[in-house]
Structure formats: structure tokens, C-alpha cells
């Protein structure tokens, strides 16, 4: 007898708005936490760390030493701290105060001048290979050319003979390997998952747990109006978070926006639809907020691990990639990275767009099927 009513939907939205306003802490948190996450992931969790503390023990203060140190500093991987003796430097390495110890032998400049190619020992703390990996690689590239300029003319080497071929490694899109560039698009997808999947499934289940759902069902409001009334505010919140994080990422981390922002927002809308369908499904099954939270977490963890957010997708075994391909976040992530970093258009993101649409349709059908109009 009663079809869908926008007036009743408006009443639901008004109620949600009042409740949100009464609980400003939650709103503030949902807007501030993503920003903190952005800073955490962008600055703190750096997979390519620079400025690693390095102890310098020098028994030979010479022009060569100064050149070597400044070359090291110029790689930006090393922060040089002079230590008086090898023993104190070793102690610092053991305590973790420094990650490298560079020892310059007493007869360094004499040996260099005599063309004896002295060896410099660089001790590294190998207990965290990830931390020192890039720095070590940078060191390898350093040694050959650095002292050339300072050498006496007779010792200066001619340009080294060209090897038969040379592999030039060139990281595109993120040549400096800035972690933030890679993290930000992923972070947007993760944040949207939290606010649309976790928050909506919990919000709808809350009505059931506190008994207000029974009251709503007994009134003329349609279940679809109730569901939309609960969902729409979180869609809005999700978009607000997206815009905030994106703006911050552009201003603070210099993340480029090479593609169309409109296309990004529309694709994210499809991603949001996937999450809402999933959240709605959870909320029809869960009896308590705790259960809803756990179900959402269950979906959230693989989203972090298998989507390519934390670990590169290419490095995962086949079965993990298969799961990842099903998850909407995997595709949202690629789309966001593609549009922001590579300037992809609709044609390029299409392979990731339709799997999300398929997911939204299937999950939506399940949610509608499970959604009950009565308490049965």
C-alpha cells in the first residue's frame, strides 16, 4: 500500500543527523583519524628509509675523507656522526644508536695517493635488512667515481671501459620511491572501507540491538527507507574523508593528480556501493554490534593484506591473488593509483571497473535477499 517515500527517508536522515550532531566526537574522529593515518603511513612507515644514523671513526682527516663523507651525506641515506674510537662506535651499533659504522684507516690518504686502492670497512646492522637495503645499494654505486676528482692527475682513471651492456633501473611514476605516493591511493580505499563497510554494518545492527529496529518496523517506514537512511550519511562521510585525505596528500606529500578527479570520485562511488552491499548483508546476519564488528573485521583484514595495499600484489602466491582479485578494494586501489599517478582514463581503468560492478550486483542481491521486513 505504501511505496517508497522520500519524506520518510528525509525523516530518517534528519534523525541520523541529529544523532551525529549529538555525538561530535565520533564525527571528529572519523575525519581526524584518516589524516593521522596518512601522516603515519606517509612519514613514519617508510619502506625506503633515509637519514640512517652512521658512525664515522676516522683516523685520517684528509681531503679524501671529507669528500667521501659529503658524498655519503649527499645520497641522503646516511647521517654521519663522528665517534672517537672503533670501540665506542661498535658499542653504538650494538645498542642500535647507529645502523652503520664507517671506519677510515689511519693511512687512508697515503694509500690512495700511492694508488693502492685501500679498503674502507663499512659495518651494517643486518638485523633489519629492509631498513638498510636501499642504503647499501646506494653505497655500491658510490665508490667508483667519488674520489676521482681529488686524485693527483697521474692516478685519475680514464673513463672506465664501457661494459658490453648496462641495465639502467628507472623507477617510473615514483622515481624517488616516495612511499606516500604509493600509500595515499591505497589509504583512500582503506579509509572508505572503514567508514562505509564497518560503520554502516555496525550502525544498522545498533538499531537491532537496542530494540529500536522493532519500533521502526512497527511504524509505516519501509525497510528500504531505513537502510538508505542509515547508509547515506556514511556515504557522505566517506566522500568527505576522501576529499580531505586527497587534499592533504597533494599539499603535504606532493602527490600528483594526473587523471580526472571526477572519474576517481565516480569509481570510488562504485567501490562504496560494494562496501555498502557487504555491510548491509552483515547487518542482516549479525544480532549484536559486536558480531557486526567482527564480520566487518573479517572482511577488512584480507582487504589490507591481499589487495596490494601492504604487500605488492605481484609478490603474492596464486591463491592469494585469486582472493585479492575478488575483493573490490584491490580494484579500487589500482584505479586510484592509476588515475592519480598515471593519469589513467576510463579505457585504462575499465578492467578494474567491471569486477567491482559485478561484485556490487552480487553482494547487493544477497543483501536484498537476506533483508527481512519482519522480526522472523
Amino acid at each position, binding site marked *: 500500500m505504501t511505496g517508497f*517515500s522520500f519524506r520518510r527517508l528525509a525523516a530518517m536522515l*534528519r534523525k541520523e543527523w541529529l544523532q551525529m550532531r549529538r555525538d561530535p566526537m565520533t564525527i571528529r574522529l572519523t575525519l581526524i583519524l584518516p589524516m593521522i593515518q596518512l601522516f603515519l603511513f606517509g612519514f613514519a612507515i617508510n619502506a625506503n628509509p633515509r637519514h640512517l644514523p652512521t658512525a664515522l671513526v676516522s683516523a685520517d682527516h684528509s681531503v679524501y675523507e671529507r669528500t667521501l663523507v659529503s658524498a655519503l651525506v649527499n645520497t641522503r641515506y646516511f647521517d654521519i656522526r663522528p665517534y672517537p674510537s672503533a670501540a665506542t662506535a661498535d658499542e653504538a651499533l650494538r645498542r642500535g644508536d647507529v645502523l652503520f659504522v664507517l671506519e677510515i684507516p689511519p693511512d687512508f690518504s697515503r694509500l690512495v695517493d700511492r694508488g693502492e686502492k685501500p679498503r674502507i670497512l663499512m659495518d651494517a646492522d643486518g638485523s633489519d635488512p629492509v631498513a638498510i637495503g636501499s642504503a647499501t645499494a646506494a653505497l655500491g654505486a658510490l665508490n667508483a667515481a667519488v674520489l676521482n676528482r681529488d686524485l693527483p692527475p697521474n692516478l685519475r682513471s680514464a673513463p672506465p671501459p664501457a661494459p658490453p651492456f648496462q641495465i639502467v633501473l628507472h623507477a617510473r611514476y615514483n622515481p624517488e620511491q616516495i612511499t606516500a605516493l604509493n600509500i595515499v591511493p591505497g589509504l583512500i580505499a582503506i579509509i572508505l572501507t572503514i567508514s562505509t563497510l564497518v560503520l554502516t554494518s555496525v550502525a544498522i545492527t545498533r538499531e537491532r540491538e537496542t*530494540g529500536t529496529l*522493532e519500533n521502526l*518496523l512497527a511504524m509505516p517506514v519501509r525497510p528500504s527507507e531505513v537502510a538508505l537512511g542509515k547508509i547515506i550519511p556514511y556515504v557522505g562521510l566517506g566522500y568527505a574523508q576522501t576529499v580531505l585525505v586527497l587534499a592533504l596528500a597533494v599539499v603535504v606529500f606532493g602527490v600528483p593528480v594526473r587523471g580526472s578527479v571526477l572519474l576517481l570520485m565516480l569509481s570510488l562511488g562504485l567501490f562504496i556501493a560494494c562496501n555498502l552491499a557487504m555491510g548491509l548483508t552483515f547487518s542482516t546476519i549479525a544480532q549484536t554490534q559486536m558480531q557486526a564488528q567482527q564480520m566487518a573485521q573479517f572482511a577488512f583484514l584480507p582487504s589490507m593484506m591481499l589487495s596490494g595495499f601492504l604487500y605488492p600484489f605481484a609478490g603474492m602466491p596464486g591463491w592469494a591473488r585469486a582472493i585479492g582479485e575478488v575483493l573490490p578494494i584491490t580494484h579500487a586501489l589500482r584505479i586510484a593509483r592509476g588515475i592519480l599517478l598515471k593519469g589513467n582514463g576510463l579505457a585504462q581503468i575499465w578492467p578494474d571497473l567491471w569486477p567491482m560492478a559485478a561484485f556490487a550486483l552480487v553482494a547487493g542481491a544477497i543483501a536484498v535477499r537476506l533483508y527481512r521486513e519482519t522480526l522472523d
Partner: protein
Amino acid sequence: MSASSPAIDVHDLMKSFRKRKVIDGLTLRVETGEVCGFLGGNGSGKTTTIRMLCGLLRPDGGGGTCLGLDLLTEAPAIRRQVGYMTQQFSFYGDLTVRENLEFVARLYELADRRAAIAAVLERMGLADRAGQLTGELSGGWKQRMALAACVLHRPKLLLLDEPTAGVDARARRQFWDLIHELATDGLTVLVSTHYMDEAERCGRVIYLAGGRLVVQGTAGEVVAAAHLVTFEATGPGIERAVRALRAAPGVETAAVFGQALRIAGLDRAALAAAIARLDDGRLTWQEVPPRLDDVFIHMLNAQEPAE
């Protein structure tokens, strides 16, 4: 719908949860304008019945009408004309009284929202508390707020599920005064309760046990139908006597009420024998008319004997 047709007329209702029969062939008739008490022990099926009456649960079997509308096919139309007050308070604690009422009024798409809310606030004596957060109200005021929300859309039938549970005596009495006022205006009320004084304020009571109707009628009729015999004693030593009497055969209940000791049972001779065996001459005994609570405890015992 003519004035004389019943507000609730359902027959042979059945409802099972996971193969367990909760409502087992319930036939129920409530006349328009009646205040009908709905009684029965915990788990006897009161809430389930009320939920079926307003279409929140689908009966597995049986059928009938509510306000002349078919229970199975016209549930949404029934809901529009019914005010249902849930057993658990189910409005939003983080909204004020007025905001909750406004929300309800909007969902019913009431034409003159402001006037309707003002009228109901006035009537329920809630006008002073309209701006207060509902979660901060005491139990009695919460129940009034819930009642206000139930009558806001001017329903023809009120289904109240234990509306006064956990509310103090004065608030309960005031709540019932309101129910009677509403009934005077022609509203039909079905109200479940565990309180005997409330049952006595109902025009008729229906007693439910194990999902079946056990007895119905006015309080007097129910008492008479039980054929219960009650004796009362006064004097020193009633505290000790009550323990001996509880164990005596034929005594169904024995309890002390202030200065008096009451025993009840079906068999007058057995009760007299129990008294005679105990009597040390210090207690004065007399037969008194049974009260409604004696009858209900008797019926609860008959259903599931106490340990």
C-alpha cells in the same frame, strides 16, 4: 467497520521458533473500546502474540482480523492504525523527547505535526520535559514518552507490552489513569502485565500459558472460575506456621502478607485438615474470598509446578 465489531478477532494462531511451538492455537477476541489485560508467566507467548497482531511476525497458522483488516494480507494497513509499545524501551536516548516525537510524526507523515506533538505533550504531562534527552529520563517518564509516541498518530488500537515493568507505584497508577482516559475516547487497549492491581483495572483479562488461552473474563469471573478456596489467619507465630503449611498436602500457596497468613488450594477439606493439624489455638482462622493473585499463582503452579 461498525462500532460493535471486535477490534481484535483472531483464531487458531500458531507460531514456532526453531520447531518449538510458542503459540499453540490461540483464539482471541477483544471488543472495541475495551481495556483488556494480557496475563501469563514469562515465556507464555504474550510478546509473540502482540508482535503477530501488528504484523511484525507472520503466524505459521491461523488468521483473523485486526481492526477489520486481514492479519496476513493487510499488515501494513494494520500498523498504520495500531500503536505498539515494545516491552523494551526503544526510542533514541540521544534525542530529546520532542525530537523523538517529531521523528515518529514524520514517519507517519502527520499533517499537522506541531499541533499533534503539542497536544500529546500536554496530555501526557511531558510538556516540561520536551527538551530533555530521553536517555536521561527516569523509567516512569520514559514509559510516558513511549506512550506519547504510540498515540501520536491517533491509533484505534493500542498494544502495550508490559508498559509499567520496573516503574514505581505512583508512576504506574498515573500511567493507568492515562490508559483509561484514552479508552474513554474510544481506543481499544490490549496491555500485558504482571501486576495484579493492574489486572484488576482491566475490563477483562486474558490469561495465557504455554501459548494457549487458559482463562478469560472480568477479574471476578476469572476468580470465580478457578474455584479456589482461601483461608486467612492472624495471630502470633504466623512466620513459623507458614513453613509447615507450605509442605502440607492440598495447600498450593501459603504466604504472609503483613500481619496475615493466607493459604489457598482447590480442596477445602484438605486445607481444613492442614489447619487442624497445625492449630495450636493461637491463630484465628477465617475463610476469605480469593484474590486475583492467588488465582494466577495457582494457574502458574498448574502449568509448571514450582520446584
